[in-house]
């Protein structure tokens, strides 16, 4: 590899370099980090945020934002626990469709539309659950379990969703249109892309992915709680941004988001292993998010 292509590779994979560096530092300070079981745990811990963040990637690439994914995850998990898992997925997709309709046909800013959904979905979760946690059935519990010793299903699901996301973004018309809409909505419209219809699907996908993430979370815990996944939307956005996507749209990749979610999980795991007090962990995580965004912005200059 020539110097230029190495530099190009490094600049396109800044987040990956950061992840490896982070892992290296933690491994040196606490060798137990590299224990196979611990690494699998990191993967499992990353899975919920990662799946949610994949859905968020579609929205962010298309120039929007989805603040409702945490609430949708909780609602989907609750519906799944009270009825059946697949119905949870349907509810998530429908919430996303409503988001999409508000944004495209209602012309609401995505921030406002999904902020409203954040509240509505959380409220509905509380209403349906009557404020109580509910046990999940065997199917949902299975999602959070180990397929075999050392083969956690959440990790496999994360990889599956990663593959699907990459496929949608790079190999489907919907994916290509996301980049066009996020890059220049006016040009997309004048090129004959039905921007409003595409947005419906984009937000529906985000809702669907959030619901899947919610079911995986409930499966791991064995129950769906009314306050589950509170604040997860911010982690999902952080993962997308750490992964190099631009909040102004048109830029973002599935690998970036995966790395972003892993950065957050590795960081949390490492801070625990290093016995950093939980209050301080928040400070460190915030600083890392700012640092990642800062490096990205420096790199672009």
């Amino acid at each position, binding site marked *: 590899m020539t110097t230029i292509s190495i530099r190009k590779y490094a600049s396109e994979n800044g987040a990956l370099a950061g992840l490896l560096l982070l892992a290296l530092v933690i491994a040196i300070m606490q060798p137990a980090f590299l224990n196979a079981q611990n690494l699998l745990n990191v993967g499992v811990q990353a899975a919920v945020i990662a799946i949610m963040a994949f859905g968020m990637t579609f929205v962010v690439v298309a120039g929007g934002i989805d603040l409702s994914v945490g609430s949708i995850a909780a609602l989907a998990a609750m519906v799944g626990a009270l009825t059946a898992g697949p119905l949870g997925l349907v509810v998530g997709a429908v919430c996303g469709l409503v988001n999409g309709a508000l944004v495209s046909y209602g012309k609401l800013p995505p921030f406002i539309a999904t902020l409203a959904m954040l509240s509505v979905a959380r409220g509905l979760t509380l209403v349906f659950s009557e404020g109580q946690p509910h046990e999940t059935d065997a199917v949902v519990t299975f999602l959070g379990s180990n397929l075999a010793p050392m083969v956690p299903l959440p990790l496999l699901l994360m990889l599956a969703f990663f593959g699907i996301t990459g496929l949608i973004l790079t190999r489907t018309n919907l994916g290509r249109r996301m*980049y066009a809409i*996020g890059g220049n909505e006016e*040009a997309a419209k004048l090129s004959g*892309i039905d921007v409003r219809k595409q947005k419906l699907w984009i937000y529906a996908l985000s809702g669907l992915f959030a619901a899947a993430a919610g079911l995986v979370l409930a499966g791991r815990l064995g129950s769906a709680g009314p306050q589950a996944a509170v604040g997860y939307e911010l982690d999902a956005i952080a993962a997308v941004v750490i992964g190099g996507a631009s909040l102004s749209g*048109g830029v973002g990749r599935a690998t970036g988001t995966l790395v972003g979610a892993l950065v957050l999980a590795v960081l949390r795991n490492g801070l625990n292993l290093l016995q950093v007090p939980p209050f301080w962990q928040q400070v460190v995580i915030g600083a890392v998010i700012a640092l990642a965004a800062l490096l990205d912005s420096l790199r672009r200059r």
Partner: protein
Amino acid sequence: MNALITARGITKQFGTTRALDGVDLDINAGEVHVLLGENGAGKSTLVKVLAGIHSHDAGTIEGNASLAVIHQELALVPELTVAENLFLNRLPRRYGFVDRAEMRRRAPKLLDGVGLTVDPNAKVKDLGIAQQQMIEIARALDKNAGVLILDEPTAVLTETETDRLLEIMAQLRENGVGLVFITHHLDEIQRIADRITVLRDGRSVGVLGPRATTQHMIELMVGRPIDEQYPRARQRPGQPLLSIENLTKRGVFENINIEVHAGEVVGIAGLVGAGRTEVARAAFGVDGYDHGTVAVDGKPLPRHDVQAAIKAGLGLVPEDRKGQGLVLTATVGQNLELVTLDNRDQKRLHDIAGKLRIKGRVEQPVKELSGGNQQKVVIGKWLLADPKVLILDEPTRGVDVGAKVEIYELINRMTAQGRAVLLVSSDLPEVIGMSDRVVVMAHGRVAGELPKGATQDQVMALAVQEISA
């Protein structure tokens, strides 16, 4: 001669491309120095190096005159008032608060200097683009800039606005300001230039005096002789492909009738604000209209439906290339396939990129291309869709001479294949030279139609006429 800034051997490298290669430039007091060159020749890079926005890799810049640049993208805050924009960053203050009275007192004097009569309390977003430009110039003058660099200021101006700007530039020259002027309009150069530095591929290929001929300038710029500026090859017109009948949008345009036949180029001329772009957008379904019909190849189109228009065989190259034509974050290839996503074909993509002579790889980000090549990408995305009728709205705005001729050749090729072209253009020689018929619009109506060979005076006479309602 009083040199304000002396640049010698300026070299600037971006990755593997050498944007500037040993360029010399003198900026003298009381002189208008024109920088001429095709897009991508290095003019803007040179300006950015002089302004200190880019560092240079080799060469020296001497001189201590303060320097102001009027960039193509205006640096005004639309939501603030004229006065606030004039004093942005150094607002007069009193007791720690903005001194509005002082601002109001000083603003008219500055505006006067550029011959602008606007209310200093008006918001900048409510002003026209020409007025905004004047405000930027006024602001630069208030900072006592010894050198004023104008990067394609006339690209967005109408003829009278351009006249006004040239007058002000002459005035500034009298006052001893050193001016650097970038423009693609050769007639403007002949009117104001004292010296012309021609750039090609990052090198200075010649310094000309004020009496240089157009032919000489063009040939230096493109590096080869050019036979004809408007090489229109006429076809025998076939059946009508685009029929706009009685198209009306109240308050915008009224009773527009335009018919374009197979093999024909129909031009739409008129002043800015005459409603030309609005008609083009309505015909293409971007905007709605009140009544009338638009038909492609005899089939009427539904109102306000871009998808249907495209399916019927219509295409639109919009006037604002970056704002409406391109996805700047995407590659050349991704932009080319924008219209034809449902029917992707990598081979045709590469074919079209080659045929259009786009200078740039298909995988390259489109924002790295020069304006002319970007415009070819926008046209290319439509050619892939194989339209019957293509509407071109200001297709050569901000495009250099060489690329212009290539776009004209493309128009010829399209009509030779039996397509129809509707050409909206503010460039009078172009719209007259390339059209088989010219429809002139004024105040939202068709003021008249002129056959091929019409003069600029005839077009202008129709364009400025008052139409009683």
